[in-house]
């Protein structure tokens, strides 16, 4: 089994049509090509994985010295993003090996991990789906959180209580996303529905159930 995932970049959304004529909401991703940068082994690193880079133009000038050395060791030009994928120890994968979209096919289920869009400082209604109160009819209680605990006992707010605060801009994985089609020639991956993150953000696509494989 080769590497079971790929690094991709979100392009945008569109519609495609099924045989029954139904419109399928679809996200288009530029997936790969990727190249193996480093093989991590249990003996040396304590776990078995491969580090993979997403092949895109990145000038050497913009690569840090330590990373330049890292890429030089692998004998490949620097890439902008690198991510790791778990692989079994026995797998013979070496730096320089290519990974491309053809590892997926239409109908496959994938997990996609990305960084969600930042929502800023959000109140409890948006952040935790609190119901809020009536807007009118003299309600005087609109989008406030309400009671946050008892009084003299325990004289404090319980840790972990849901409150207003920063929302979004965190790592989100959406599982069981269906692959609609692939275009190996143009390195495009089309999946059904939405994918975490904004357009042009990088995401990691795993075959379903392989995210923790080898752990």
């Amino acid at each position, binding site marked *: 089994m080769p590497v079971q995932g790929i690094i991709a970049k979100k392009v945008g959304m*569109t519609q495609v049509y099924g045989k*029954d*004529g*139904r419109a399928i909401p679809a996200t*288009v991703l530029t997936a790969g090509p990727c190249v193996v940068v480093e093989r991590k082994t249990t003996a040396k690193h304590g776990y078995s994985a491969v580090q993979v880079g997403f092949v895109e133009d990145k000038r050497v000038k913009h690569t840090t010295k330590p990373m330049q050395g890292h890429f030089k060791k692998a004998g490949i030009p620097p890439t902008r993003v690198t991510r790791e994928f778990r692989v079994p120890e026995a797998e013979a994968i070496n730096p320089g090996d290519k990974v491309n979209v053809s590892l997926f096919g239409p109908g496959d289920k994938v997990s996609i991990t990305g960084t969600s869009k930042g929502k800023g400082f959000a109140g409890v209604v948006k952040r935790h789906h609190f119901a809020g109160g009536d807007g009118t009819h003299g309600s005087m209680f609109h989008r406030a959180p309400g009671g946050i605990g008892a009084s003299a006992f325990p004289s404090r707010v319980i840790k972990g209580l849901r409150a207003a605060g920063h929302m979004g801009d965190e790592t989100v994985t959406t599982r069981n996303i269906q692959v609609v089609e692939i275009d190996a020639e143009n390195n495009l991956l089309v999946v059904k529905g939405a994918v975490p993150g904004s357009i042009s953000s990088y995401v990691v696509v795993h075959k379903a159930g392989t995210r923790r494989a080898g752990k």
Partner: protein
Amino acid sequence: MNAIETIEKNINPKIHPDLRTGSTVRVHVKVRESVLKEEQKAKTAKAKKDKDQERERIQIFEGLVVGIRGTGAKRSITVRKVSFGEGVERIFPLSTPSVDKIEVLKRHHVRRAKLYFVRDLKGKALRLKELRDKPAKAKSKAEAAS
């Protein structure tokens, strides 16, 4: 060509030069009919075989185009008709394979991109002025498209 266009290039919307808001159109929709249960039981073996090819027929929806939205593969039209005194609107994506073809019957003079005001009109007030000067070029193109 960007990546989205690459994906959409295989999807061909049924574009027609006369397909504008204010046109009267006949939309040929493919409808799948499921076989009745008893019928199915009688020919279970055969039904299984034919499951993928249920009976398909063409249904026609004729009405006024009250709006067009979207571009490329996402383009769709809203068609309105009055059926037994009840206004009915259907939205057809122009790229879906279940729309067999779209015939443009008439064009009308309208001054809006979206004709939502017709929802409040009926009878005499609903009349629109027809446009009759249509170049022949458009027609041949339409036939090629369908």
